[in-house]
């Protein structure tokens, strides 16, 4: 038969055993995968990313997740922080209706593929009123050429809980690999959740990620998405403010170089009144990279006293880099304050001139300006470790260029 691996019946039948619930979900998803087309650029959602010739000839790789707890003892707290399949086996009642509850398998061909072939993943459950001071972290790694991984995080914070999770994705540079990731985050009434996703795949990886959070009454959700890696990365970040008084902060930081293609999409869905959401995405582009930001603020009928802000800032450092921004608003309530702002532009010449006139060489001046550009977002990151790593990564991106130019 065919030499090239693919997601066919044989691969599906070779999946490890799973509890009934998961098995039937897999089966339905496999059907959806086979019937759904690869999303077309003709649709608004996929207008800027062309996957029409993307071959799905990958082998599903066994998951490698490393969970760390910052040395916090979780025993006796009722917190569950474990492999998703293990949770499905031991605590089916906690996962019921939550696995693919926010991101249904039938959403696209790729979510269906995820639903059918996912094994492993991360499950974090924080019971009512339990507050964890230090961040938890899960690292998903990918090692082999020609493989696909399906990272899946389900985070449940019950009423009044308080937790921080860092979701990291790492790999070496590979000829060709595929990551199809989903994170589903349930923020209970009055709960506080901070969630950082750090995408550091090597080159050669195609990354399609969807993160969706449901925020309850008077709850607070702060998310941070950092993207430096992958050859093509499409990251969708969605928050539904489902109960009155909810708050959502969505921060994004990315730096694209080479021929990287980033497609960032966000949704701030105000379904209840008196909610606040604030989004700030900042990105730098150089070489022949391309970045698209498209965002939706949707204020549903009756969601009065909404305060929503959406900002996308792009700094373009090279002649062949391309940036697009499409910040959309759909407002169906009147007593609201909504705004958005987007900009695309080079490093400001006047600022460079000012610095140069103070004796700072041009390359150094540019580095200072770009560093300052990102500082506005990083200053808002409450996780010192994550902030430091991002700062270092930005310096590395900027420093490498300087060496290339002088060397």
């Amino acid at each position, binding site marked *: 038969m065919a030499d090239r691996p693919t997601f066919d019946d044989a691969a599906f039948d070779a999946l490890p055993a799973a509890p009934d619930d998961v098995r039937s979900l897999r089966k339905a998803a496999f059907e959806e995968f086979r019937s759904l087309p690869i999303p077309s650029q003709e649709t*608004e959602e996929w207008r800027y990313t062309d996957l029409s010739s993307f071959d799905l000839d990958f082998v599903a790789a066994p998951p490698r997740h490393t969970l760390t707890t910052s040395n916090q003892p979780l025993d006796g707290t009722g917190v569950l922080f474990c492999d998703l399949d293990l949770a499905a086996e031991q605590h089916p009642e906690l996962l019921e209706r939550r696995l693919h509850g926010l991101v249904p398998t039938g959403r696209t061909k790729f979510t269906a593929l995820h639903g059918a072939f996912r094994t492993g993943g991360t499950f974090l459950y924080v019971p009512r009123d339990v507050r964890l001071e230090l961040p938890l972290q899960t690292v998903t790694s990918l090692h082999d050429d020609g493989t696909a991984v399906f990272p899946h995080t389900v985070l449940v914070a019950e009423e009044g809980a308080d937790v921080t999770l860092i979701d990291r994705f790492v790999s070496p540079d590979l000829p060709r690999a595929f990551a199809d990731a989903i994170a589903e985050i349930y923020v209970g009434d009055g709960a506080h959740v901070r969630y950082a996703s750090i995408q550091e795949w090597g080159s050669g990886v195609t990354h399609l990620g969807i993160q969706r959070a449901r925020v309850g009454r008077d709850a607070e959700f702060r998310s941070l998405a950092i993207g430096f890696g992958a050859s093509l990365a499409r990251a969708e970040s969605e928050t539904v403010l489902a109960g009155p008084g909810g708050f959502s902060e969505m921060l994004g930081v990315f730096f694209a170089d080479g021929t990287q293609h980033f497609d960032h999409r966000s949704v701030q869905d105000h379904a209840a009144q008196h909610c606040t959401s604030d989004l700030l995405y900042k990105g730098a582009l150089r070489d022949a990279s391309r970045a698209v930001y498209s965002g939706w603020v949707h204020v549903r*009928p*009756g969601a*009065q006293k909404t305060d929503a802000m959406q900002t996308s800032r*792009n700094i*373009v*450092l*090279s*002649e*062949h*880099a*391309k*940036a*697009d*921004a*499409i*910040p*959309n*608003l*759909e*407002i*169906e*309530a*009147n*007593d*609201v*304050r*909504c*705004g*958005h*702002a*987007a*900009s*695309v*532009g*080079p490093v400001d010449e006047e600022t460079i001139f000012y610095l140069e006139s103070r004796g700072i060489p041009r390359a150094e001046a540019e580095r200072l300006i770009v560093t300052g550009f990102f500082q506005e977002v990083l200053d808002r990151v409450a996780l010192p470790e994550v902030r430091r790593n991002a700062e270092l990564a930005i310096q590395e991106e900027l420093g490498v260029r300087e060496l290339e130019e002088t060397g």
Partner: protein
Amino acid sequence: MAISQEEHLKELSKGYRFDWKDEARPVFEPKRGLSEQVVEEISSLKSEPDWMRKRRVKALKHFEARPMPWWGADLSGIDFDNIYYFIRSTEKQAATWEDLPDDIRGTWDKLGIPEAEKKYLGGVSAQYESEVVYHKIKGELESMGVLFTDMDSAVRDYPDLVKEHFGTLIPANDNKFAALNTAVWSGGSFIYVPPGVHVEIPLQAYFRINAENMGQFERTLIIADEGSYVHYVEGCSAPIYTSDSLHSAVVEIKAMKGARVRYTTIQNWSTNVYNLVTKRAAAYEDAVMEWVDGNIGSKVTMKYPSIYLLGEGARGEVLSVAFAGKGQHTDAGGKAIHAAPHTTSVITSKSVSKDGGRTGYRGLVRVEPDAHHARSNVRCDALILDDDSRSDTYPYIEVEDETAALGHEATVSKVGEDQLFYLMSRGLSEVEATAMIVNGFIEPITRELPMEYAVELNRLIELQMEGSVG
């Protein structure tokens, strides 16, 4: 609970003062529906040259082949088979108002066009149903070589100019409604301004639909030669019927090197007109193109005036004001395509929605590769006056050159309680206070209008506000 047709009409006509109907006495028996035969008939009634006839027939094929737009407003209410595509109302164009049949002349008198012409216009074109029934240009403009005629006459009288430019900015297959217009177009204005000529007083066209289920498809072409200036103003209205009419115009403008063109629209169709218009301008080296686009009326409007900045140093500006009340959906906006270095564009949009109305800004700013040092700024503000109404903003920014600097900002809000309180504590009623705040809100647009139109726009807004509270 079903409302009677009479109540429905009454509801539609609330606050609309252009709702009178002339008794229709067309000189050519109109037919409903669209076919190749209808297209051929229009062409033959106009005794057109063969190239235009062929173009129409080809465009009809494009129209039939293209799907309806899947985005934007709901267009499912358009019944293409029920529309009159061509109605001829007079035997020949009049050069004096007195030469028009009494009822048609009465319409223009009520609209105040003859009076405006006397006072402050350089030329007037008045289109009634499918054709321009009155046309006049001031003698001194004519002697400077300014051409201002209806489009049908231009095809006959200036075939070379028309053939050179017609359909070059908006080809027949550009979109479904541009294809429809190309197939059945009739009327509209043709303007040519010779090099260096400044037309200091505005030229105006007024479009009136009188018949029920009328389709009006005017076609306008403006060429401002090097270093010239012209300001063109269009207005429109229609009576209110229980079933819908369609207005689908195509407007092409070329501002040659160093020329400046300003195109002002005060769109006040009745709320049973689908208004689906394609407007596009090219601005060459150091040229300036300005669209001032006011949308008050219509049931549905989809219109995004565009500017292609094709020459170094060209500038473009779109000022858009949209108002949507009960049953109205106004999807307006603007586009600026930067295709040459050192080009700038500014798009300012102000929209107000009330009584369940829906306004939208849909726009595109695109910087092509090598269009270095492009600058663009987009500002959209929306006011939503009650909680049944809706506002959408869909801005697209596409940048392929690293020296481009683009910004977009938008806000959506309601009328500030404290502003209302302040004005009401000074003795204004809530309606007056709201109207005053709304007028202040759209002031950046109205201050760009000739005074007479600014007054008219403010009055329209006040009229729309009446009965909005309590």
